[in-house]
């Protein structure tokens, strides 16, 4: 009989038993990085290409189950979305035990939850959100809705790159032809692909659109992600998840020690409203000092924004006029 196993040995056996049986001649699994409800992510070494990678494996002990289907869908979604804000997939396949796995770039960085404490000022925060919104807009343009945007699913890399993770509950709105022409031509009527069952509740409370809270995951459209982006902005500013009622969100934003500008507040509340606008365009316009669609401006407000936007130019003109007047007077 084996002698009493130490706590350390029990821990190692526990890890070893759950580690994926990836082809050992190709990948050497090194460590468990994280474990979620759907899958676990391991750090591994790609022996053929000589680089570190991340391997995500379904937690299902039995292949072909719901978890497996979701992981398979996630790899398909990631493979379809080639964008700097989305982790690239290198490889995918079935383990010896029949479970699905995929290999992706190993990303080092902080989740938004950790990174938010390091953000210095509104401009830095908006920079992150603009890149985040751009990624989400790219996914939407390719017929994919994320449906679970939340701080722990957003990673900020060591070079400031913003990555959207965990596409396991994403919904493919339409089948678009693959680059090699492998998919059937899209007639616009192809059914949406959804690895979650009808009526399934997907998302995370506080960041979840009302339709997802109602369990209506199947009919959720891009607006569900726009709601989550607004909720994330709200969370960064207040440290709290967004309340269900828009009025309450507005009150909480106004009560902050340093409340956001009226235009930024309008953008957030618009995202949280049922008729959310185009957040991506609005964020870009806001950062560029242009008017946002979420907030119609009055004349005074527009003038102040204009003055703010062209501040340097106006100061240069004023300095020129002062100097010219001074020279004229001296002469």
């Amino acid at each position, binding site marked *: *009989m084996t002698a009493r*196993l130490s706590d350390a*040995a029990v821990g190692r056996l526990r890890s070893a*038993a759950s580690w994926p*049986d990836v082809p*050992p001649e190709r990948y*050497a699994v090194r460590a468990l990085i994280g474990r979620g409800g759907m899958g676990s992510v391991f750090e591994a070494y790609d022996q053929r290409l000589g680089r570190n990678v991340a391997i995500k494996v379904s937690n*299902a002990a*039995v292949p072909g189950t719901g978890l497996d289907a979701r992981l398979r869908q996630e790899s398909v979604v990631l493979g379809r979305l080639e964008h700097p804000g989305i982790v690239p997939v290198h490889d995918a396949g079935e383990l010896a035990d*029949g479970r699905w796995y995929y290999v992706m770039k190993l990303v080092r960085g902080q989740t938004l939850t950790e990174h938010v404490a390091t953000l210095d000022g509104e401009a830095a925060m908006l920079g992150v959100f603009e890149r985040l919104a751009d990624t989400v807009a790219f996914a939407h343009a390719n017929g994919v809705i994320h449906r679970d945007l939340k701080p722990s699913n957003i990673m900020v890399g060591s070079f400031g790159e913003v990555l959207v993770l965990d596409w396991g509950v994403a919904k493919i709105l339409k089948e678009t032809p693959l680059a090699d022409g492998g998919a059937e031509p899209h007639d616009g009527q192809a059914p949406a692909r959804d690895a979650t069952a009808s009526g399934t509740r997907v998302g995370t409370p506080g960041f979840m659109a009302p339709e997802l809270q109602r369990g209506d995951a199947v009919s959720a459209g891009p607006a569900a992600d726009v709601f989550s982006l607004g909720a994330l902005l709200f969370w960064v500013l207040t440290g709290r998840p967004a309340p269900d009622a828009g009025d309450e969100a507005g009150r909480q934003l106004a009560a902050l020690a340093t409340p956001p500008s009226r235009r930024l507040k309008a953008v957030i509340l618009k995202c949280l409203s049922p008729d959310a606008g185009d957040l991506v365009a609005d964020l870009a316009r806001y950062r560029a000092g242009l008017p946002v669609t979420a907030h119609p401006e009055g004349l005074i407000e527009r003038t102040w924004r204009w003055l703010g936007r062209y501040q340097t130019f106006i100061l240069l003109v004023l300095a020129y006029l002062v100097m010219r007047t001074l020279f004229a007077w001296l002469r």
Partner: protein
Amino acid sequence: MIPFPATRQSVLERVRSQDDEIRRVAFGDLAEGYWKPGYHYLRVHWHLAPEAAEDAVQAFFTTAFEKQYLERYDASKSKFRTFLRVCLDRYVQNLRKAEQAGKRGGGATMLSLDFPGAERELDAAAGTNLHDVDRFFHDETVRFLFARAVDALRQALDADDQAIVFRVFERHDLNPSAEVTYASLAAELHLTVAQVTNYLHLARRRFRELALAKLRAISASEAEYQREALDIFGLDVTRS
């Protein structure tokens, strides 16, 4: 392929069977999975002397079989493991009352169990935090489950003339030293690094299969087995 046992009765369903032979085998499975955590629990928590703890564990399973203690388990109220521990607590309490009343309790011998070995293990458990008795019983159960799976793995690999596979597993996963790497192990055991990788891969997979099979054999129901597999291995063993 992880073996998913063909649909069969859970240990609790077998414990509740009208067929005495099925009940006897089910109690054998339970005793095999729980006797050592039970023995350690009685020694550490109840401070029973080695012989008294030995008698109590033997008698507990015998009495539970005869008086149908375990048939009363209600899955909506607790985990089966917790229920088993509480039954053991009550059994010891009753035993003490009986002793005070001048009656002799225990003494039944049903199983051939390695109590001296279990006693030696207690030295290694010295200093264990016992503030959370449920946690202690859980950890001891998992430890014993793994030890049984390791034994089964050793036997299976020996039988297949693959003792070297177990040796790699033992050196890398079971009793590693800080400096053990695939390369150092390959050099030590006169293997290639690829062989070390492949052997470790094989041993881990078989260990997982054996541990899951043993876990299932001592789980009260399919639902409990699924929860325990997720808790212990992070594996979802449901099929839907």
